[in-house]
């Protein structure tokens, strides 16, 4: 498994993920910072105190066995956990040095800035056009119909879906294939022009070809967005991520350049996991 991960890694990845240099260079470019974040579901603690920095325009992947808290932590970053009644978040998460859990923080604006794409494609039962236009309309991003049309087109283009759907924008988004639906959801997220896109196992419901397209899309998007993704698939992390974080039992065990994590992990548990000893 370890070997295949290395051989699958694009050569460009190695140069980007130049570990130490990037981390030191990016200190003033910290986009989000989590400090001692703990998450509880009722009385059960799911996250035990995580510190991590997320740099501008990087692709950061969270890996780890099921139930390790990686999705829970991801959902803290745009406060999606607020929708779960029994979920409680402690600690501090900042976006551009401002606490996102501050009482006066407007969660609606936060989510416009930190978009999220879910594991299962969840297009609204509306037309393709309306799916994309929904977010911009919510936030009043377009004053005229023509502007909205532009946003829809450019979002679909960036998600690589435009050519496939341009002739049937009025048809229901639920009628697309699984991979198209997921790219529609990504386009929908891009349409509100966020700074950060969170992706919660975006390819786990897709076949290999659709997965390939989404991965390519992530690669292209990383030029203008900061992307944080959770994945079960270690090769995927190796293929698309600049840095990779390994979670285990609610702890962040290790975070480093993807290259280092997959070739020379510092922690024994990381080593065991990526060599397939458990998880």
């Amino acid at each position, binding site marked *: 498994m370890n070997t295949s991960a290395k051989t699958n890694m694009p050569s460009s990845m190695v140069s980007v993920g130049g570990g130490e240099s990037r981390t030191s260079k990016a200190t003033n470019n910290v986009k989000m910072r989590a400090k001692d974040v703990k998450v509880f579901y009722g009385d059960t603690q799911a996250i035990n105190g995580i510190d991590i920095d997320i740099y501008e325009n990087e692709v950061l992947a969270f890996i780890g066995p099921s139930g390790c808290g990686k999705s829970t932590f991801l959902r803290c970053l*745009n406060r*999606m956990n607020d*929708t779960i*009644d029994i979920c409680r978040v402690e600690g501090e998460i900042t976006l551009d040095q401002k606490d996102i859990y501050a009482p006066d923080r407007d969660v*609606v*604006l*936060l*989510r*416009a800035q930190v*978009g*999220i794409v*879910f594991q*299962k494609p*969840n*297009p*609204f*039962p*509306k037309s393709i056009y309306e799916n994309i236009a*929904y*977010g911009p309309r*919510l*936030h009043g991003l377009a004053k005229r119909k023509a502007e909205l049309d532009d946003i829809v087109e450019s979002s679909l283009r960036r998600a690589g879906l435009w050519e496939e759907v341009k002739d049937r924008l009025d048809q229901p988004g*639920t009628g697309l294939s699984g991979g198209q639906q997921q790219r529609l*959801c990504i386009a*929908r*997220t891009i349409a*509100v022009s966020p700074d950060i896109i969170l992706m919660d196992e975006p390819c786990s419901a897709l076949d290999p070809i659709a997965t390939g397209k989404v991965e390519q899309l992530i690669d292209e998007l990383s030029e203008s967005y900061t992307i944080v993704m959770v994945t079960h698939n270690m090769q995927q992390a190796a293929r698309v991520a600049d840095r990779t974080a390994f979670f285990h039992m609610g702890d962040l065990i290790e975070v480093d350049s993807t290259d280092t994590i997959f070739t020379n992990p510092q922690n024994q548990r990381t080593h065991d996991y990526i060599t397939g000893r458990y998880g």
Partner: protein
Amino acid sequence: MSNLALIATLLLIMALAYHLGLTRSRAVAAEHDVRMHSRPGYYGALVALWCGLPALTLFLLWSFLAPQLIDMLVTQQLPIDLVAGMSDRELATFLRRVTALANERSVSGGGTPEELAAAAHMARLQTFENLSLVALMAVCAVTGLVFARRNISPQWRARNQVERVITIALAASSAVAIFTTVGIVLSMLGEALKFFSFISPAEFFLGTTWNPRFSTSGTDAQGEFGLLPLLWGTMMVSAIALLIAIPVGLMTAIYMAEYAPSWLRNVAKPIIEILAGIPTIVYGFFALIVIGPFLSSVGDLVGINIRTTSALTAGLVMGIMIIPFVSSLSDDIITQVPKSLRDGALGLGATKSETIRQVVLPAALPGIVGAFLLAASRAIGETMIVVLAAGNNPVLHANPFEAISTITVTIVNQLTGDMDFASPQSLVAFALGLTLFVITLGLNVIALVIVRKYRQQYE
């Protein structure tokens, strides 16, 4: 031997047959030292079925046919001139009295000599019939038992056969409901056709006056049977009810499904559903005694003349009654909308109410419309509230503050008191019932189709 004792005995014999089959199958297994196809209980059950089912079928056929046979034999025995002097109807009455006498029940007048003679003859026949039934059933049961018990062998697929009998029994139970429905519809159709032989369908469906006179005023004075005032009244009351129930019910459902904390939902939902369990007659007198006078005094305050019993009174209370239908059906449907859709909207920065209005409700809309239609058919068929609170005034007018009448109320009126089922005044009830049935059936079918279509979308 009374029928009850007969059945009880048969059940006892079946229990015995079960035991015999069970022990026999064990014995066969031990004797040949092989594994039986089915477990012993199945052989027992199968022997019991072989013993009981033919005898039971015989019993049912016999109970159905024997009385007719006896009636026929008794009639043949009667003096010819007596029979010739009677119409079919008189003969039926005569036989009913004879049957009563034969079973030692008293009849009015004590019975004529001819009746007593026929009764004695009938009693003899009945004794013979009863004895032969017992004998035949005994033969049937024992033959079945012996046959099945001797058939027990390792190859006999008892389990499969028992399963088949169970399937047939279950299917038969479902058939009961279906045949009952069909029977009711056919009988309504038959009587309605009789009505239409008096009054033409055009006159009934398009007539604007409802004034059916009394049947005692002679066949010439048939009165007018125009459906439209009643249909209009029904629609008006139902529309008022839905105007109340749909917004209140839907908002209740949204609050319960999306906003209410779980402790509140656990307390409030059952209370709301209790509303559906209150007998409609109670709603009726609540409307008559509380709501009617209240609306009337409110009307006085604002200068509108509102009758105590009016379309508004009935519609308002009926609306309250169907709130739980709308709210609990819509609640189920809203809860079924996948969480991922809500997350999708929230993740784009929609507020909670934006998510509900723009994503959850559109997704749930077909199902909610289905809930509305079910509530509507409930409102159209509702009777007691309108009987008490709508004023029974079958006149075509558009004023909701005046009394009206509905189809259901009119059915009640036409079928209470002295009835003569040969007159259009009573028969019209069947034509009305059929109309009502077709309307509610149509609404239910549309509702079910819509709800089903919606379900498929997310399963």
